[in-house]
């Protein structure tokens, strides 16, 4: 209910945040929207001694066009992504999925960068960014770097961010007419996904040129449905049902009180088929 004691610093810029991280070492955590961090601090699952508030870095709150990509500032709120005309027209899966995160309060405070840096594979956005082959821009004491989504999520709640690094921007490709879908299964409205599936389907001449499929909550990190993706590469649109049968191949999701591992695999197959069908029709 109440976190352990912590100090509080306000970062005036991304560079300042990096400096503060350098001063306080790995006991510091960045505070963005706080809607993942503060609950786990209240449950005392996390006990950072310093919070560095990056909530005032308004220059990291943007959605921009950048050639064939969209650049989204890390401090952009879920609700701003959800309602951005640019995101809706060029990367609809992202706007749609941002609208499924938590509840309205969470979406108005929580940020895209915060959700990714928290690295929870049960959150809706990481799997979608993975399916999008997104790139993440990072600033740290060693300078700037860019990392692919596939290399960003390392383990349960662990990412490639070093203790003195800050995620500043995410870049996603414009979908350019590719079909998309995100299917979330939960038993209670506004709950975490038991399983979620994001799919992006590119078509040419009546067949599928590529399928990119990312899972929510099927492993300790967001993962791709590799077998199904391979089966669909260059395949006929009629092969979706068969390809979806292999969606859970190679996964070993956890069993918990929301679902058994086997039922999650079942859901992964069903939802993958539904996502692919919807992506095809979109």
């Amino acid at each position, binding site marked *: 209910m109440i976190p352990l004691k912590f100090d509080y610093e306000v970062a005036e810029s991304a560079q300042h945040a990096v400096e503060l991280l350098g001063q306080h070492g790995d006991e510091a955590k960045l505070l963005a929207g706080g809607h993942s961090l503060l609950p786990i601090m209240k449950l005392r699952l996390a006990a950072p001694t310093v919070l560095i508030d990056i909530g005032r870095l308004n220059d990291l709150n943007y959605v921009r066009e950048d050639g064939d990509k969209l650049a989204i500032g890390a401090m952009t709120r879920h609700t701003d992504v959800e309602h951005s005309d640019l995101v809706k027209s060029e990367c609809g899966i992202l706007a749609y999925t941002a609208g499924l995160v938590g509840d309205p309060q969470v979406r108005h405070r929580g940020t895209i960068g915060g959700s990714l840096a928290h690295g929870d594979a049960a959150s809706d956005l990481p799997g979608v960014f993975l399916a999008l082959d997104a790139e993440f821009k990072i600033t740290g004491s060693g300078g700037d770097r860019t990392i692919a989504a596939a290399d960003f999520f390392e383990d349960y709640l662990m990412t490639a961010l070093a203790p003195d690094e800050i995620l500043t921007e995410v870049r996603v490709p414009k979908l350019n007419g590719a079909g998309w879908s995100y299917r979330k299964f939960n*038993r209670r*409205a506004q*709950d975490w996904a038991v399983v979620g599936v994001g799919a992006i389907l590119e078509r040419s001449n009546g067949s599928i040129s590529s399928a990119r499929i990312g899972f929510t909550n099927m492993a300790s990190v967001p993962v791709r449905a590799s077998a199904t993706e391979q089966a669909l590469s260059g395949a006929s649109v009629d092969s979706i049902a068969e390809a979806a049968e292999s969606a859970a191949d190679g996964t070993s999701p956890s069993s918990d009180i929301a679902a058994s591992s086997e039922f999650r695999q079942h859901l992964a197959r*069903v939802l993958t088929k539904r996502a692919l069908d919807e992506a095809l029709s979109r």
Partner: protein
Amino acid sequence: MTATQAPGKSVGAPISRVEGHLKVRGAATYAYEHRLDEPAYLHPLQSTIANGRVAKIDASRAEAEPGVVAVLTHENAPKLEAVGDAELEILQNGEVGFRGQFIGAVIADTFEAARYAAGLVEIEYEERETDADFRPDRDDLYTPEQLNAGFEPDTSVGDVDGALASAAVKFDATYTTPREHNNPMEPHSSIAVWDEGELTLYESTQGVYWTQNTIAPLFGLDAEKVHVISPHVGGGFGSKGLPHANVVLAALAAMLVEGRPVKFALTRHMMFSVAGYRTPTIQRIRLGADAEGKLSAICNDVVEQTSKIKEFAEQTGTSARMMYDSSNIQTTHLLAALDVAVPSWLRAPGEAPGMFALESAMDEMAIECDLDPVEFRIMNEPEKDLESGLPFSSRGLVACLREGAERFGWDGRNPTPRSERDGRWLVGTGVASSVYPVFSMGGNAATIRADSDGKYVVEIGAADIGTGTWTTLGQIAADELGVSFEDVEMKIGDTKFPNASGAGGSSGITSWGSTLVEAARSLREKIEAEHGGNIPDEGVEASAKMPKNPHRKEYAMYAFGAHFVEARVDEDTGEVRVPRMTSVFAAGRIINAKTARSQFMGGMVMGLSAALHEESVLDTRFGHVVNHDFAEYHIPTNADVGELDISWIEEDDPYVNPMGSKGIGEIGIVGSAAAVANAVYHATGTRVRELPITPDKLIS
């Protein structure tokens, strides 16, 4: 609605709750919010083992922490009287009977200091093996002497075995319901203050006198030395019926800091260990019927759980004794006593799990007999209460079933499972009956004072746990006094008002209302006889006790209801949605159409929740509930609840009480889970006999 009601015409009107504006503005004072000088704050120490004893407890680091006033342990706790209640007699030795049991407390100047210092207390245990495994094949199951509310554990009428052997249609299946936790929005809260040997408790309770009568003997006090104040309560669902150990802990702690108020509110996590819960049940239902579908045998054999330190035996099988007609009826109850927290009341203890099993089985039996489940129930309607042999004071089940079928659009239903679909959704409908006894509780008195300006003040130590008592009692009093509702001021929720039973067993209105009617009659007679029909300038008052109801020996008294549910099941994922539910109740005269509707609705949603969501998962190795918060203990949100069509039939029952009302707090939950399960079966062809109905159970 707040329109003025004509004198004598308040009962039945949908009057908005009189204290509603206080609650909306945050101005209603709940237990924890009473402003007292220099309060101290309590954070409990809870056992981290399920069975054993505290071998060593070192509070020195906690005591040295700034702001800490005292640390309470079994080594320094004041002695309690031995009343034979191991749940309440805490800190009298180091024994531990379940995980989460209170073994001490830190009292500090701030909540934060208390909580922090609690983590500094070093505790060593001598642990004994934990036995928390609830199974029907244990060799130590036993029959309790009596069930909750005094019911017999085992009953037998006729020859069930013989009837089953010769039945043309036989049915035998086992149903299970899980452990469920009450979880009112307001957690249990207390402020305890001792002053010259008297204890004042600002409490969140379903009955100020129930609290007084339980707490006073523990501290060796006459009842009137314990003052209990509880004007507003944020729900209870039974868990605030009788006080739990949190009240004792607050009172013990307050003794260490005499004169200073000690505040203690349970956290949501603690609600899953110390505030009661519904036992899991395993129920074997056997039914026999002749070729026409007339029942010849009804049998419910129940296995359920209790705690080793204190027995609570839920009356799960009692509804099977009176619900349907049969010459041969048998019910049994066996208990497993485990190293677990003490189970207790949860909305409709007995009926809620019992009617899930019976009403599911009735659905299955109707199918076996090739009969419509509504007609099957109606043709097995009994003429009298088979348990007591008495006639029913009124029995509106058939009317509820007929009315509900009409409102829901039941006629023409294709009984074949999986006969309707909407895309990937399988669509089904189900029905179940509901029942709840009309309980009456003793020990009630009331005082009414009339002032010369025509205003009346009514005092009774009753409780409003969110049910609308502040309003409904005013309606009853106004009508009996023959004045308008606005001229009556209620005073409840405090032991400074006359003795009253609590809000439990849906008995509140019957018990308090009967008392108010008697007091109002006394006052009117007094005004007539002593003052010539006019209220004197100095005012006049009269008091009365609840009169005995002579009809209780002549009639069996129950409320009834019928639920109709449409369920939609995604055939690929097993997702269940309930887009609509129609429930009709026969609950005597409805006192307030608005608050009654809320009560019915809350019960129905709680039944829906039991059907699809609620399950406290116990880690049998360590004896604790794993999903002890609202993230993991699922209750539906508004978005999960479909359209609710709620109504009641006009029922004139002159026997139950002077108002003609029956309790309505619990009947909404009874049978509603079965109606959902029956609709899910009709949609899918899959019968789920283990609650909750999670998606995986519908995917083969």
